[in-house]
């Protein structure tokens, strides 16, 4: 935190419309995007990947959660431009060859979706949690899910599905 010297703005990189190159669900993707566009808008409106949901739009509800380089990110408050060179995973990229992943399979088995609008966000949050910490404790599980809100209040079944998904992932190790 030394005192900086002022440098002319001319040296600053400026992006009004920029060519964005990134991996989306493993696919190399190249699009011209406005600098202000959020990652959520980019995914839904440009790529038509509408599985990622537009909820509160301010980062509170977690419905728009995607993974950016493996980390959960609220795509509504993330600039698409900031994702240049990253690998983004959305709910569309979770099932491989039509086979549900353990988190999706557990949600299906326990009917852990009511209206379903929050479900993609919950699935992405849990995918990250179990990839990062497959032996997560109940406390760690509940803390991680603190980023996602279900307005149907279906938390009991969501937690049941999450615990079952964890068992499935542990059994497959």
């Amino acid at each position: 935190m030394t005192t900086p010297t002022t440098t002319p703005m001319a040296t600053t990189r400026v992006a009004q419309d920029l060519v964005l190159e990134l991996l989306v669900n493993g696919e190399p993707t190249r699009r011209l995007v406005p600098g202000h566009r959020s990652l959520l808008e980019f995914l839904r409106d440009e790529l038509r990947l509408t599985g990622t949901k537009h909820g509160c739009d301010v980062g509170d509800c977690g419905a728009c959660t995607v993974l950016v380089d493996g980390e959960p990110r609220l795509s509504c408050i993330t600039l698409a431009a900031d994702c240049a060179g990253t690998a983004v995973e959305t709910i569309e990229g979770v099932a491989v060859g039509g086979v549900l992943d353990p988190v999706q399979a557990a949600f299906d088995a326990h009917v852990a979706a009511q209206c379903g609008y929050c479900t993609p966000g919950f699935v992405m949050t849990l995918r990250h949690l179990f990839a990062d910490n497959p032996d997560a404790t109940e406390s760690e599980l509940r803390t991680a899910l603190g980023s996602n809100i279900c307005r149907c209040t279906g938390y009991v079944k969501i937690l049941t599905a999450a615990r079952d998904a964890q068992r499935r992932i542990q059994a497959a190790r």
Partner: protein
Amino acid sequence: MSEVRYPTAQGQAVWGHRRAGGTDVMDRLRHGRITGALVDLRDVAGLEGLVALPGGSVEAGAKVTLARLATDAKVRAGWPGLADAAGGLATPQIRQVATVGGSLLQRTRCAWFRSPDFTCHKSGGSGCPALAADHHWNSIFGAGPCVAPHPSTLAVALLAFDGLVLADGRGTLTVPELYGDGQAADREHTLTDEQLLVGIRLPPPLPGATSGWFRTASRARAEWPLVEAVIRLVPGGMRVAVGGVAPVPMRLPAVEAALEAGEGVAAAAKAIAGATSNPGSAYKVTLLERTIATLLERLLAPPGVAP
């Protein structure tokens, strides 16, 4: 205009709406409250340090995330009330991206300010729809033209530890110097557009101090506090800082004095001196006293005894 600038040096990070974690700016952008260039601080060097200084202070750069601040071993050991606040606000995902600088300089969370359908003192107009509506979030101390309480939980914690704010172009500021008296109709802090908040400094912990954070809110996570407090208990250095009740984070000197006098939990009764409210926010007067009492009960409970 949809321009984003990516400066690499602190001196370039001016002339635009600064953005780091995006938890404030993206909302205002979407609602048309921001037009013009964004200045994305992603590539600006020198704002990510979290370092111990000789003598026991710690400095955290403006881009240090709240999650990092909350889990840093130095911060947890020396300033637990601040670590608890940084690690308990909003949601885990927001704390992963929200930064020290953004938390301190975010704009008011008043719904009328953020709505594209209203104007107010802070959005280029005049008047205060929140005052007219007698809203339940309104301040009960020192309300100026704008009655919205200050939104920064980190600022409350910083105030409780006599923390300092480091600003390029301005120098070292106390929390009251950063925010002023809260009476400015159009802004929440005293930095100019040319001045860049580069970090915070936590003074050395006082020997024997205990501290904590407690908030009352309508939802455990992803919600703004109705009332919150960060308290440091140590003889000769009692601090009671509160948020959700005034246009700036504020200390309660009468409660601090009562704690110095050994009044314990009963000191909370001094919290409400000078409070004024309209009917809509009158509940906050009682809530403030109970919030402080609850935190004091927790901090003063003998070890191993649940309050």
